[in-house]
């Protein structure tokens, strides 16, 4: 009498063997994949090259943005309102009133005229706006016809003074009267991009001309990616077509 065999039937053994081989092959594949993944991770971590994709290259505008000039609508010599609404999309030079007697304002007019001539020579059509507390007809007569001469608004002046104190730290220590005779460079979006004391030295005139050139070319955009390599400045004003910018 033969004892019943403990071996499984031949078919089942074959099936088990197949499953074993499949599991073994799968395990090997997983181990290999893991190995490759780990090697890649180690390579990335140890690589001298950043494991982040290439960084975006920014070209920043060299002119800081000191803040947004408070909106204004002041009256010109004809009593017509004029302000930020009419100046939108255009860079301009804004002369604040100060406490100057008429003789002092004459000096500023002379310096501003010099700035305007130099900008015109470079075909940079910036607007000139003079805010004054002198009689408008007197200042208008002594100013070039292309300038807009406007009567001061005290409440607006206070806001501008606050912006200058807060936004231009280098000049925050100066007295209000000194700050309020400043010449401002305003970009196409109404951003304050430069503050100058034209009465102090002729170098302030040079700085204003250089910065105005920059604002005209760069526009209000603070920084830009995607410029050609080593491009010197931000191009922010828009496209150039047959009729100029549009």
């Amino acid at each position: 009498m033969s004892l019943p065999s403990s071996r499984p039937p031949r078919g089942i053994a074959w099936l088990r063997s197949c499953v074993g081989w499949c599991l073994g092959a799968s395990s090997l594949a997983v181990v290999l994949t893991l190995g490759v993944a780990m090697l890649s991770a180690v390579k990335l971590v140890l690589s001298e090259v950043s494991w982040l994709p290439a960084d975006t290259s920014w070209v920043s505008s060299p002119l800081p943005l000191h803040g947004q000039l408070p909106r204004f609508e002041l009256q010109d010599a004809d009593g017509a309102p004029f302000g930020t609404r009419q100046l939108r999309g255009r860079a301009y030079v804004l002369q604040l009133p100060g406490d100057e007697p008429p003789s002092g304002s004459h000096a500023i007019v002379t310096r501003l005229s010099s700035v305007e001539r130099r900008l015109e020579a470079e075909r940079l059509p910036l607007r000139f706006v003079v805010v004054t507390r002198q009689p408008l007809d007197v200042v208008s007569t002594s100013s070039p016809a292309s300038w807009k001469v406007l009567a001061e608004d005290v409440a607006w002046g206070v806001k501008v003074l606050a912006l200058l104190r807060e936004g231009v730290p280098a000049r925050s220590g100066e007295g209000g009267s000194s700050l309020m005779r400043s010449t401002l460079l305003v970009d196409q979006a109404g951003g304050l991009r430069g503050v100058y004391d034209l009465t102090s030295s002729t170098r302030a005139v040079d700085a204003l001309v250089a910065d105005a050139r920059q604002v005209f070319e760069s526009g209000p955009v603070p920084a830009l990616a995607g410029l050609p390599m080593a491009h010197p400045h931000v191009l922010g004003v828009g496209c150039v077509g047959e009729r100029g910018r549009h």
Partner: protein
Amino acid sequence: MDAPVVERARGRRWVGLLVVGVLALLAALALPLLRESRARLRARGLPEFGALPTFRLMDQTGRPFSDADLRGAVVVADFMFTRCPTVCPLLTAKMARLQRQAREAGLAVRFVSFSVDPRYDTPERLAAYADTRHLDTSNWALLTGELEDVETTVLEGFRVMMGREADAGEDDFLSIFHGEHFVLVDTEGRIRGYYRVVDDSDGLESLQRDLEALVHAAD
């Protein structure tokens, strides 16, 4: 071979398989984390240029559309007008390409185009513009509104140029000028980049990378 030895061998095999399985699971979990941490690092490195402006305009269907409709989403904005014969068709084509690539990559991004000629660009004209160019407006809104509101939004909010030559008539569309940049905004409503996408610049590729990072960082 006696039974306990066979059992021990089988046990070791199952333990080995379990270890491999756990490792595979860990790797599967770690890869998305790795991708997310890369995205977070990249997103953190992007500059900040101020807040998305508040605005109330209309989309191409005539429905009100405000900055609130964009909150919580990564947004790409551009500035165009339908009568523009030069750069705007190119900008629109680039935006459509970016939208297609974002969709294929499974990135949830919103697109907005602000008309810089809003008096002419009525919602109907914007809808016709979208229709003619087969634009997918499911996540792309073309916006118009009062000139004052658009100027405030584009100039003071986005700090992108828009304007018209002095004394130009309403029909003189060649006198309109505007910035040709794409602007990237994150889910927190912060402007994170300005990209030049025309000509052969690599701005579009940079924008793709950065918006992908912002989307993954927000996940």
